[in-house]
């Protein structure tokens, strides 16, 4: 089984980078099994193709505009994810929807896709998360652990 946890976003634009921060936090807090690869996708596009080919599970973490209070965490699964990236809700919709479409054409789509989204408070220049979003990273990590556990993987918290 191959699983990728993909954090995307721009680390230079505060909450825009929350997906990457959360992916790092998962890696720092847990010893992950060898089936799982954590990818810091930043704002890259086609460079991610090789990492995302022929996966059993793809779990994406990104800042998304839901129109909810900042820090709200949401989960989407399956066909809703590519559809979601075609809307205007995510700043990275163009890149990821193109990658997913290309993977489909090449016959290398992930078996299952889950998206964990976080509503940003600030997209200002800056490398730190806002006060509204930073405390939610632990919650996102717990959700990620839940996703991985649900597909039969086990992991240990680092000492």
């Amino acid at each position, binding site marked *: 089984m191959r699983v990728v946890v993909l954090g995307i976003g721009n680390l*230079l634009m505060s909450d825009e980078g929350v997906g990457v921060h959360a992916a790092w936090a998962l890696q720092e807090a847990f010893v992950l099994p060898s089936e799982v690869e954590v990818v810091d996708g*930043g704002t890259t596009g086609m460079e991610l193709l090789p990492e995302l080919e022929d996966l059993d599970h793809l779990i994406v973490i990104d800042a998304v505009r839901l129109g909810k209070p900042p820090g709200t965490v949401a989960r989407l699964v399956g066909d809703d994810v590519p559809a979601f990236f075609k809307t205007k809700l995510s700043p990275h919709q163009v890149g990821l929807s193109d990658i997913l479409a290309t993977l489909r054409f090449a016959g290398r789509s992930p078996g299952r896709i889950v998206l964990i989204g976080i509503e940003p408070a600030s997209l200002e220049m800056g490398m730190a998360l806002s006060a509204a979003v930073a405390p939610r990273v632990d919650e996102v990590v717990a959700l990620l652990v839940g996703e991985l556990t649900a597909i039969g993987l086990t992991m240990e918290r680092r000492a």
Partner: protein
Amino acid sequence: MATRITIDPITRIEGHLRIDVEVENGKVNKAWSSGQMWRGVEQILLGRDPRDAWAITQRICGVCTTVHAITSVRAVENALQLEVPLNAQYIRNMIMTAHGIHDHIVHFYHLSALDWVDVVSALKADPVKTAQLAESLSDWENNGRHVFIDVHERLKGFVGTGQLGPFTNGYWGHPAMKLSPDVNLLAVAHYLQALEVQRYANKIVSTLGSKTPHIQNLAVGGVSNPIATDSQSVLTVERLMLIKEMIDKLGAFIRNCYLVDVSAVGAFYADWTGHGQGITDYLAVPDVPMDSAGTKFMMPGGYIKGGDLASYHPIKTFGDPYFRDGVAESVKHSWYNYSNGGALHPWKGETTPHYTDFQDDGKYSWVKAPTFYGKPAQVGPLAQVLCGAAAGHQPTLTYLNKVVDTVSTLAGTRIPLTALHSTIGRHAARAVRCAVLYECLQANWQALMENIAKGDVKTFNKPVFPKGEVMGVGFHEAPRGVLSHWAVIKDGKIANYQAVVPTTWNAAPRNEEDSVGPYEAALLGTPIADPERPLEVLRTVHSFDPCLACAVHLTDLEHKTVVQVKAL
């Protein structure tokens, strides 16, 4: 009566570029290129440790991560007059060239080919005839009829589901689409093969850079790759042998597929050698340094005036004053204010936003307008290939002649070298540059192996920051052209930092003298068959490989303009 067309966004992968044209009597008579997002990354760097700048600057852009990282360490090294060990140069060169190869292949096959290739038309192709055609063009091993039959079937299934995926919203059936169904099928098949091949280039970058898409192995003063012949965890001879296999596979694809396909598109669209010329003052910097100090380069660079190769003025070293003193940026037509009037040298550069609305004769872009000795310049693979030709650079000439010969044979008429100053010429030059990058990648692999065999495993020289102020410029001939980072360092901290990126040069708005930028100039005179579907505008702008993510940045929701024509 002139018709105004606004295209926003214009890029497939990275958005934020808006193009406005005025069409009169079926031709563009006015053009504006506008960056729709603000870039303020420079301000994040103020007061930081210069040794950290590269890791931050590689987050400027999602497409050009490594190029900003490499240019940043070069800027700091230039400020410190710090040399880097040979192994570090070779490893950096391999990362750079592999990244460039990846970028060029993906740009041609996955981002711009759909401007020329009609995917839906490929359904009407006869796969057997496609195979005959392909075999007549090249002895590429993956041109057999079974390949085209398989792709044809797959395409039918894909289109049948009504989900065209990456091909959605194409200008299918547009009168400017000229390829036959068989050639279209050939292109779709190579689109898929290029998806496979680009993985090898990516794998080279991730093996050497520890990770991709954001490399981890750089350091001011060298690289952090320990070299050993007996350990699993570091750069070993075994890993280098795997890299060699991937280099060979890239070379086979570039020579037998990419160069041939670009020639075929050029021949079938020979009329496009007459469109999109624009500014013929070209600027490129030398790259792939083969010594510690950055004075000997495998790829030449310099300045060419008015498209005349005899006017070539080379740039010779990192920090060459001819380059260093020639660059300035104007904000007369950009949404910034300078504390005093006139253009500014990047070391004195300022980033103070001043948004107005879109003013045709005033400010209309978040992109600044860079100039070289007061003039706009076109940058990119075409600029670099022309400098190579002017300098008598053998690998450039060899591949350039191969492309020109193939195009001439297919078109049935002799195509002159001046045809390069065009929309299609930029695609041809990119393929030539890709082949030259492959030669450089190969040569640096060889040089690294030989140097290690001599017992030299040094990869890092420790930087020492002096008291007081030092200034440095780092440059790199990136996939989209000249990239320069300008750092002012005071008491070991960054006091000013400016990045003048390739797309800033090419997507520049009008400058201090109100002269148009390269995109704008290239669009003038372009014929537009159907103002509702301005495919011709996209062709010319895409031929520059626009990447506005690093020219500007930051979501600008309040000022978002209405999408009038949605590009792919």
